């Protein structure tokens, strides 16, 4: 069988490359072996593809639409991991975290070339202190600036807010006669584990209880957080131009990197 022969050859080549590298052989030999390995791997891919039909996925919403949908549900600046998880749980999405890495930069480029051409942009959250882009978080340009500000308490309040929004969305779904997926319950349960009193033992989280518990903690932080955020938002509105207001100021701007 062709595949088996190719696999054997690939393994053999990899071994030879390791030997050559470990033995300090000249680079030329290693390069030649590498080239041969790549050829074999391509041949293997081809052989495999001949065996199976290409996977025809249904056309999807563009990535930015999906992210927008997830962020709208979450209601707070979020990390790509959370966006992917929400997308999986509620929208049967097919977004991979790796697809989100360049999203913010692309959006900034688009905004710079023709500002406000789109109804919304996926933009940055801003650190309260320096109004620089907060690492790894995505937000929506149409949100009030204060929502996009990250103060010291914001990571926690945003987490609690997101948990509440996820739970409420599930309640909406069940109330409307539908049902939340098991993936949604898994997501909620995972979040609930880190909220005091939101879930007991190892059972499945109950949306109503999560809302109650998260709100109970949220009120503790809310006032201080709101104050921090509004103070910073005021500074952002007065001091930043329209690009940096969305994509962050700082000692190194996103477009320069």
């Amino acid at each position, binding site marked *: 069988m062709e595949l088996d022969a190719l696999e054997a050859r690939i393994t053999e080549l990899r071994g030879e490359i390791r030997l050559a590298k470990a033995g300090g052989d000249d680079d030329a030999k290693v390069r030649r072996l590498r080239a041969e390995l790549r050829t074999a791997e391509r041949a293997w891919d081809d052989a495999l593809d001949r065996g199976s039909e290409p996977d025809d996925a249904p056309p999807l919403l563009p990535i930015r639409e999906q992210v927008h949908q997830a962020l709208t549900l979450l209601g707070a600046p979020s990390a790509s991991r959370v966006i992917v998880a929400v997308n999986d749980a509620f929208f049967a999405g097919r977004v991979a975290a790796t697809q989100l890495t360049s999203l913010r930069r692309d959006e900034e480029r688009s905004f710079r070339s023709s500002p406000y051409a789109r109804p919304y942009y996926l933009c940055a959250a801003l650190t309260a202190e320096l109004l620089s882009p907060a*690492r790894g978080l995505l937000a929506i340009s149409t949100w009030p600036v204060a929502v996009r500000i990250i103060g010291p308490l914001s*990571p926690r309040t945003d987490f609690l807010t997101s948990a509440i929004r996820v739970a409420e969305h599930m309640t909406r779904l069940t109330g409307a006669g539908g049902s939340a997926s098991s993936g949604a319950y898994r997501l909620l349960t995972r979040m609930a584990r880190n909220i005091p009193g939101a879930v007991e033992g190892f059972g499945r989280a109950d949306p109503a209880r999560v809302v109650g518990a998260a709100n109970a903690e949220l009120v503790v932080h809310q006032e201080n957080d709101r104050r921090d955020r509004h103070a910073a938002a005021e500074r952002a509105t007065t001091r930043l131009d329209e690009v940096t207001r969305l994509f962050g100021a700082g000692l190194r701007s996103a477009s320069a990197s």
Partner: protein
Amino acid sequence: MNSPNHRLDALRGGVAPVDHNARTIAALAGNPGCDRRAVLDAAGIHKQSIAVHLGHPAPFGQSPFALDRARAFEELVKADGCAHLVRLLRETLGLSVPEVAYTDIADVGGNTAHQLRHTRTLAELRRAAEDGERSGTLFDHPLLKLPVAGHEVYLEPSVIAFQIRGRFHIVEIKSFAVIDGTADSGQVAAASRLSAVYVYALKALFRAEGIDPDRVSHEVVLVCPKDFANHPTATLLDVRQQLASLNRQLSRLTRIDRILDHLPPELTFSLEQSPAELARAIRTVEARYAPECLSACEMAYFCRADARVCGSVDVLGRATRDELGGLESIDAVLDLTAGDRLTSPEQAEIADQLRYVRAVYREHASAGAEAVA
């Protein structure tokens, strides 16, 4: 006479020194009796390059799977505003509900320059120390600084410092599993030594800032996956002994001139020379090889090869060496055993013992299936 730093620069052969990091500082305690390693470390010489040049590279390396796992676990612990960590600290140390403030010092307004981050770290910690809980609980990616062998070294802990009731703790996130409350004791020890470096540096920072260093706790919060799942669990580690040991090792490094004084003035470990020349240069600094080095020091395979060539009893391990009561070479042991060698007075006792064992083994030479060395 040259100053020690001058000498060390010369040993390096004009190349910039490699920076120490928490791992290399923690490793100082691994074999402090080894002059060779002490000199190489103090001079900031890249030991693996030397070992490769000498033809004895150490087969150290980390599996990409282990690296992925470590990264993924750390992300998980810090995800959602450190939601897991907040839960664990509430459970283990009684952190109160309002204490959730999180400050990331991985960059300052997008700038990652060390000096900037360090200044920010100082400012944040000072404010937290002075104002108490209101101005911050969790500090991610603080950048610490520590003088090592006369050089200022930045330490980039992937850890979080946090304060509770006015005391600051280090949080160390590791991806080895804690199964039923136990973990691999070697890995726990390594984690303890590593976090002791951060505790030490944080204490030094406090002291330099005029803040009571005792406000840095010697109890480190070790966060690991629980059992076979990814769910994080926290354990408190008391690193007082590691701190004491670290203190000793760091002060040893500053006494490196004791060794340097005995080295030829023109000595250099520059990689410009041939492997044979480099080997000769390296050998002028005495090593203290033990088999444990193989898993800890980049130079170990070179040192072992040397020890084998000399027939040194070091290759047999510390326990065997100790039992041989000061005999240095395997040949000497065999000769004394066979009675072929003139015995000096200080060898009389060990010689008697060896000959006795040989005689008894002889009794059974015909009966036993085993070969007698």
